[in-house]
């Protein structure tokens, strides 16, 4: 019964940047195949939380298990986890000196160490999945923002991860490009991928999320399925936040 198995377990995690507490006593369990959308005002610790999941940030205390592996200082564990966890950034972070195809093959070639032919075949498959097979030989700077973000998603998928993290994937995009990225994310969600998304795209959240998480001041203050979350949130700050962003 893989559907109900927890794949990410966050237990009482605290995170300090110097004196500033970015996360305080955060606990969250994500089951395999589940989609979790995290929202909240800026500075509430959403990004920090998902960056802890693949240890781009080190949590100060508490425990974090990904796919049964505990994240500690152990380098081997960190790399094992990162191979199973794809990450998509707000600023795309494509490798500008590599072509689109090379951006997609560099991970499988240098980390998974598969053959070049396999890596290229895999890259083409995922470029197809994000609907830009014709851009394979261009450089990132020649693509639009929406295309770049889709390449970034394909780059992560090429590692064939079990979990995908999205850190505000549409926040740096022009409005007309947001949908092409969201469409790809919806397709990915429908394929059964485990996903954690930090986003303010509430239409997308309502459509794909199994759990909605609202964070404020480094704490999770509300966890609920979207049907409950959007209609009768318990936490007043959450209600206020939703009123603000759903107003327009």
């Amino acid at each position: 019964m893989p559907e109900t198995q927890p794949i990410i377990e966050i237990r009482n995690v605290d995170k300090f940047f110097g004196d500033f507490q970015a996360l305080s006593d955060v606990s969250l369990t994500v089951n395999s195949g589940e989609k979790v959308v995290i929202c909240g005002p800026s500075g509430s610790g959403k990004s920090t939380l998902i960056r802890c999941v693949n240890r781009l940030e080190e949590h100060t205390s508490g425990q974090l298990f990904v796919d049964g592996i505990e994240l500690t200082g152990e380098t081997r564990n960190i790399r094992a986890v990162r191979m199973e966890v794809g990450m998509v950034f707000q600023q795309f972070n494509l490798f500008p000196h590599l072509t689109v195809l090379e951006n997609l093959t560099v991970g499988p070639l240098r980390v998974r160490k598969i053959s070049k032919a396999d890596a290229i075949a895999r890259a083409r498959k995922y470029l197809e999945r994000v609907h830009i097979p014709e851009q394979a030989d261009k450089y990132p700077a020649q693509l639009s923002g929406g295309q770049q973000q889709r390449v970034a998603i394909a780059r992560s998928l090429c590692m064939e991860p079990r979990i995908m993290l999205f850190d505000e994937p549409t926040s740096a995009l022009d409005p007309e490009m947001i949908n092409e990225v969201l469409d790809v994310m919806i397709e990915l969600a429908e394929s059964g991928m485990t996903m954690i998304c930090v986003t303010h795209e509430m239409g997308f959240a309502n459509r794909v999320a199994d759990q909605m998480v609202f964070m404020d001041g480094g704490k999770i203050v509300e966890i609920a399925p979207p049907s409950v979350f959007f209609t009768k949130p318990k936490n007043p700050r959450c209600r206020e936040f939703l009123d603000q962003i759903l107003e327009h």
Partner: protein
Amino acid sequence: MNHGMRRLLKRLHWMDGLIVAVLVLFFGYVWVQIGDQLNYKWRWGLIPDYMFRYDEERERWVANLLVQGLITTIRICIYASILAVLLGIILGMARVAKNLTIRMLARTYLEFLRNIPPVVVIFIFFFFLSEQLIAALNIESWARGIARSENNGVWEFFFGDMRRFPSVISGVIVLALFESAFVGEIVRAGIEAIPRGQHEAARSLGMSWYAEMRYIILPQALKKVLPPLANQFISLIKDSAIISLISVQELTYKTVELVSTTRAIFEAWIATAAMYFVICFSLSMLFSYLERPRKSGAR
């Protein structure tokens, strides 16, 4: 007179005329002083003879002192640059390493080189490192063996007279160690100019530190610092004159030799200066030509 010339003349001012006149007078005075007071006889005819001479035995023109020195200088500079870049990349990475000890060691090396006069550094490297290394590896007798053997054409092509090999090699090592510190700083600046997102993207793919550096960070960093690296190469050629002090028979050393046998002080040094200038200036022109912005899709 073409259009450009006329425009240039129009832009000249009486001030410019005055400046040129003063300079001409000054150098004319120096010239006369050298001729009259020092009773210096210019013998420019010597210089070509000391660049090339006709070898009666082999019946062909061969390099004489100055050109021999020039060739040695060029050889040493090429090898030293390659070595300096390799060491510099390692040093640059060490400067940004996570490990404090590694970072401190790299910093110490750099600060020593920055705060000790180059000549002193060169002597220290020579006596403490390169001489010991050559003795320990028995390079001297090995090189003499090759010099004596028949089929040493390849070796001679790359290193010149093999009997001089130990001194050439120590010249290369000393110069490379000296320049590597500056190359290291350039590389560090390049690495630090790469946005944090690149490191994070590489890491989140599961890349090791090595893979991250090798495939993501260094290719971008080195491309960024190519112009200062090219300039450092020119500096290296100029700095190479210092190794004449450890008896490496390069251009400056040979010029000293030439001066002591012929006493053609001015001619020899002017000729040598001209050779350094031609090499360094043409390289700097070449580099700025290569750096000019080009129209191309790939960045």
